[in-house]
């Protein structure tokens, strides 16, 4: 038996699990309500499931290539479904991105880069996303949330920007949203649109979970950085979002940091609570 995710008026505040999460953070009363564990962590080390004894688990995934044109291996889907059952997660969060593609040579296997990437943003991709959502949802017994990816460049062949793409994806599919505010900030800065206006284009009543992490700048672009503190504009986006939406969970993702100071976590959680 483990801790269960409970529905309350107040969003659950959690932290992505990593070795940088110290026992002190976990023993701190009233600090962390839930832990995010990735499917890939479970594959690598099934022992992480023991964390279920300490906090409710939200399962996150980066293996299903929801905006890709290559189906994930059947075994992967089978293992994801098992992880859903093992963690008792209230929903499954996955990226609106692709990680694999057809082989370069006809005889080869599909190539998996192991990292989610923003797709070409157009109707062709949206149609494929809808197929992938339908295919997965027929097997999944918890809600599926799709997460906006960070965008580092605009891929030629795109006929819409990310705000339009997500809005159209929501119009075509009854799917809930996981909004990563740092990804939103990064994409808006790199491509040149307004992140607040993007939020206004999306059906915010469907936002179930929010992610917050760091970002850093190099070579004229913004980059996802789970080892840096979230920049101020990300908290501005959070305040804006919380005035229009009531997500069930807010998850801090600092899982690249070698260690996360307890005082820093206290400050971050206080900050979020003050925005509620």
């Amino acid at each position, binding site marked *: 038996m483990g801790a269960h995710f409970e529905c309350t008026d107040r969003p659950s505040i959690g932290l992505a699990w990593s070795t940088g999460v110290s026992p002190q953070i976990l023993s701190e009363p009233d600090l962390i309500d839930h832990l995010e564990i990735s499917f890939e962590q479970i594959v690598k080390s099934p022992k992480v499931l023991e964390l279920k004894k300490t906090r409710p688990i939200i399962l996150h995934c980066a293996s299903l290539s929801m905006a890709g044109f290559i189906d994930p291996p059947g075994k992967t889907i089978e293992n994801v479904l098992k992880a859903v059952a093992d963690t008792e997660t209230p929903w499954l969060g996955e990226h609106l991105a692709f990680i694999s593609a057809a082989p370069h040579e006809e005889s080869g296997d599909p190539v998996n880069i192991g990292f989610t990437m923003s797709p070409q943003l157009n109707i062709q991709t949206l149609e494929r996303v809808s197929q992938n959502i339908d295919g997965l949802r027929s097997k999944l017994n918890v809600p599926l949330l799709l997460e906006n990816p960070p965008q580092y460049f605009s891929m030629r062949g795109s006929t819409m920007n990310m705000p339009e793409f997500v809005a159209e994806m929501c119009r075509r599919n009854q799917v809930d949203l996981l909004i990563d505010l740092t990804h939103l900030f990064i994409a808006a800065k790199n491509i040149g649109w307004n992140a607040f206006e993007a939020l206004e284009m999306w059906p915010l009543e469907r936002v179930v979970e929010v992610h917050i992490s760091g970002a*850093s700048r190099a070579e004229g672009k913004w980059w996802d950085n789970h080892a840096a503190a979230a920049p101020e504009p990300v908290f501005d986006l959070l305040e804006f979002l919380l005035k229009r939406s009531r997500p069930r969970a807010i998850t801090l993702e600092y899982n690249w940091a070698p260690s996360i100071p307890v005082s820093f976590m206290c400050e971050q959680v206080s900050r979020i609570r003050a925005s509620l």
Partner: protein
Amino acid sequence: MNQNENAPTAHGMVVRILSEILDLGKVCSELEQAAFDTGLDFRDLAQLAGFLTQVRNTPVRQDIPWTFAAMQLCGVDLALFRDYAPTFAAGRIRGFDTPLGRTTTLTGFLLDRLDRLVPEQSLVHDVLTHEMTVRELRTIGNNDRPFPSASSTEGAVTGLSVPILSDYVRLHQLDYDPIAFARAYLIEGSGMLKPKYALDGPGNLEHLERRSRIFLWQRVDAQLADKTGQMTVETLELDPQAGFLLNKLDGRRTVDDIAADISDESSRCDVLNSLVEFYTYTTSQQLTVVYPCQG
């Protein structure tokens, strides 16, 4: 559907190019042409390969967290990891022997690649030197003493005595102060950049500069190991003359040899000041020097 929409082809090319750079260590004009033919900008993909190489090295952050933060602060992380991608790919193909193998491969690359004449790269170099030195001193075994123990020091000191350091120490000449870097930019020395700097970058690094200063790292006694069981390493800042003197203590030079060296250097250094500083360190138990009698 718009006739320019070629998502399966474009996705395939993105994955192929990244895979060839990241998994096979290839960077060649053929890939550039293939990207161009698919309507992709190879520079975007090369940047992304640098970013992904950095992400794949996340476990190394445990060993050199401040160095990662310094690279990020200075905005040089992407370029360094982009250049490191072929080396890292080769290491993965060969199979890193141990988790430490990843760290030593990266640190070796960085020390070779960083240009100390460029301020930002010099800061990263000095922070890396600090972290590697601390790590080395913390992991030295108690039986690896480079010199005889202090118990062999009885007897009168003569010009033929060989002064030695009884502690584990290392000396490096740095341009920037790694401790000051951590205090200024990191959250409780954790390796996480303070929010302001994650957003703004470093600005001016002059406040961290320690031109012509020498740093000394000293492992303190095993009984003083910290609560995690790791050896504590203290860092001192020396003036160049004290550094010069300490560098002479190599376990071979006699008191007479060192006196002669000081004499040779006297036109270039303040010997009196050096001796005072040297005396201060050796008597304040920050550093113990013993003089085994040569019979």
